[in-house]
């Protein structure tokens, strides 16, 4: 490999590169401003100010009615756990039924499975061939014991956007809380929570060019939720633990920038995404698009290459300097076929050859041209090796 080999990162749904502006904003809080945000003296005060400022910025990106609805956490996983377990604990006397979708991220899926073992009833609502939740099934699943609906805003593997406004309306009508995992959509899709029937919403810093290990849970005013992290009185008594000040500042900065750039960025990403798909389909046969053709995250392209297994494609792309993934980062390392594609009734053999390209703000048209250049010989070489692929068709 030559030293100057091009590197193209197309795995932005796994994580993103922390922006320079974000790193610069965080830097003072590692050193100079080290006080505890709970301390009332001069060392703590600037830390408190910074945390409050970050809360305003997160609230503003999400369109929350008040910054007090934002609780900082250690990331998307904690926010999901907190939302679901917190509501289950708080509403125990009302009921024990949770409704979710079959395509949630493991942070939601495994939390629901855990609660099912602990005595909750969980309904996993199916999705159509594009990965869109079946609303009629969801409606029918609601009983007087239902306390929470948790359905993600946009899926991490395929990018399909779920009808959260409709779900919110249904939840509102039935008097049920609605949580949505917006880890992949925050900063990519506009949100205006003060005008949406969403009770709880999770975000994560590292998916929107902020730092890893920090996130937030939006909790609509009046929502009953039991804290899951017990200790001091931090975060308005909802989440104990000395605040991760640099991380929170980074998340705030990332949200501020994402909000400002959302429209332009979304347009650029959509163009690159569609340009990539066009490039792939113009050069390679037997390719299928996984996910909704239109209602999809602007940056996410999941394609299935027939007759192939995804890992071989990923390894070959890696040798060419291209970072992509099969399914989600969390499932590489597992042998299970993607639960998302399975739920969409994609043919088992077709699931195997699925690759996710997730574009980011650093990517250029040249990057896409490069990928479209290196991909066809990789696919050909692997197909020539595949017993499922009969040549000369």
């Amino acid at each position: 490999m030559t030293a100057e080999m091009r590197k193209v990162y197309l795995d932005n749904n796994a994580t993103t590169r922390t922006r320079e502006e974000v790193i610069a904003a965080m830097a003072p809080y590692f050193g100079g401003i080290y006080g505890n945000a709970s301390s009332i003296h001069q060392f703590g005060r600037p830390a408190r100010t910074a945390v409050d400022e970050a809360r305003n910025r997160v609230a503003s990106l999400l369109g929350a009615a008040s910054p007090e609805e934002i609780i900082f956490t250690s990331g998307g996983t904690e926010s999901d756990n907190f939302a679901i377990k917190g509501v289950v604990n708080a509403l125990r006397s009302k009921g024990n039924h949770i409704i979710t979708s079959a395509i949630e991220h493991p942070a939601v899926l495994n939390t629901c499975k855990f609660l099912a073992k602990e005595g909750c009833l969980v309904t996993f609502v199916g999705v159509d061939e594009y990965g869109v939740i079946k609303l009629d099934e969801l409606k029918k699943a609601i009983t007087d014991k239902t306390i929470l609906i948790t359905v993600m805003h946009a899926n991490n593997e395929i990018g399909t956007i779920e009808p959260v406004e409709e779900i919110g309306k249904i939840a509102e009508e039935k008097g049920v809380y609605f949580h949505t995992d917006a880890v992949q959509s925050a900063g990519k899709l506009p949100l205006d929570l003060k005008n949406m029937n969403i009770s709880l919403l999770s975000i994560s810093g590292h998916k929107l060019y902020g730092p890893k290990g920090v996130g937030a849970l939006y909790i609509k005013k009046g929502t009953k939720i039991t804290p899951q992290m017990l200790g001091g009185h931090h975060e308005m008594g909802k989440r104990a633990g000395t605040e991760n000040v640099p991380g929170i500042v980074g998340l705030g900065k990332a949200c501020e920038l994402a909000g400002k750039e959302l429209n332009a960025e979304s347009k650029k990403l959509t163009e690159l995404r569609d340009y990539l798909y066009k490039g792939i389909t113009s050069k390679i046969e037997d390719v299928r698009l996984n996910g909704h053709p239109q209602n999809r995250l602007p940056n996410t392209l999941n394609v299935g290459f027939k007759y192939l297994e995804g890992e071989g494609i990923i390894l070959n792309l890696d040798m060419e300097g291209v970072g992509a993934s099969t399914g989600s980062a969390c499932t590489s390392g597992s042998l299970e076929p993607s639960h998302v594609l399975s739920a969409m009734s994609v043919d088992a053999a077709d699931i195997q050859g699925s690759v996710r390209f997730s574009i980011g703000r650093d990517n250029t048209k040249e990057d896409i041209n490069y990928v479209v250049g290196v991909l066809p010989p990789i696919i050909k070489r692997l197909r020539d090796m595949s017993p499922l692929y009969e040549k000369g068709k």
Partner: protein
Amino acid sequence: MEGQYTEKVMEHFRNPRNVGEIPDASGIGNVGNPVCGDIMRLYIKVDENEIITDAKFKTFGCGAAIATSSMVTELVKGKTIEEALKVSNHAVAEALGGLPKIKMHCSVLAEQALRRAIDDYLAKKKAKIA
């Protein structure tokens, strides 16, 4: 998991040996992996002294499946049928400098494909004699 492959595995994945088919094969082994749904097809050519003179494969599977296919064909070439029957999945994995734990079953696929190819050869031979 990708990152955990040894240099040797990656080398065989990058330049797999003996990819293809043997049109007049003495035995063919076709196996599917129940764990992951992957498929391997192994061809062997055996001479009158029961020596495997050639081996080729086609594989639909992960990086480890391709590397173990490549390695097993290399290992059995020049061996007698009796010797080839002793080639275990552990031997294949070892020859590759080891495999990540969750990828050990991929080497089982290689061992089974080889067994099937040999069984196929032995069955054909028996049929010819009978």
